[in-house]
């Protein structure tokens, strides 16, 4: 219903405004920072066998990405170079929205994961990390004798 009344861009603007307000007022954020709005954006999903994490981090060298899983806490970090020209060059920067610099995002995952069964790939600017759940934690059909 609201989608038809407001454009998506307005939502993005409101989101940004809310974030700035939150930062200004310092309403007790989580110990690991804001849950939303950082770089890279994260989507997390799960299947009965695994947990899937998608980090939307475009334009990186796969080798420059660090993915770390330690006791159920997944950390994705790296550095993104700016594409902007050096300030002394004869070029004007009209819009500068893209993230540049070092980044790090942390996700707490459930504790039924197998730290030895992690795979990560980087495609079209999205880092996909897949962590398998432990055999013992996977749902099983119990045969009735």
């Amino acid at each position, binding site marked *: 219903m609201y*989608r038809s009344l407001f454009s998506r861009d307005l939502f993005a603007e409101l989101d940004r405004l809310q974030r700035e307000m939150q930062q200004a007022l310092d309403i007790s954020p989580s110990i690991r920072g804001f849950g939303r709005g950082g770089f890279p954006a994260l989507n997390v999903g799960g299947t009965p066998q695994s947990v899937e994490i998608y980090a939307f981090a475009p334009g990186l060298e796969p080798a420059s990405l660090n993915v770390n899983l330690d006791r159920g806490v997944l950390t994705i970090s790296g550095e993104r170079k700016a594409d902007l020209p050096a300030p002394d060059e004869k070029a004007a920067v009209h819009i500068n929205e*893209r*993230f540049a610099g070092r980044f790090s995002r942390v996700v707490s995952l459930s504790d039924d994961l197998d730290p030895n069964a992690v795979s990560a790939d980087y495609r079209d600017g999205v880092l996909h990390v897949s962590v398998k759940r432990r055999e013992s934690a996977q749902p099983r059909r119990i045969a009735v004798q």
Partner: protein
Amino acid sequence: MNERSTVTKETPATRNEVGLMPAVDVIEDSTGITLYADLPGVPKEGLNLHVEADLLTIEGDLGLAVPEGMEASHAEVNVPRYRRVFTLSKELDSQKVSAELNQGVLKLRIPKAEHAQPRRIEIKVS
């Protein structure tokens, strides 16, 4: 390009409503404008660029391979497409736009029309 315009004609209105706004950098130098847009998750086939009159539209559909039966528990990218429209100015040559997509970053180069490029005007002293 013909193929693309038919595709957009088939699906009017609904396609225009929802889309995430991609972050962009726009840099202008003496010969033209360079635009970088972050479109993570968009494969080459999912990208749709078109120029109509003086409007440049960037659209991209996400092509993530998601395992079967996955349930999302947290989503910051919650719409599977990006969309952003820019108004071009007259001195830009929209016929000569070049684009490349590399790991989710679109780089567009829009040159200025020949006649609009800065020239040094010679002053003749008689």
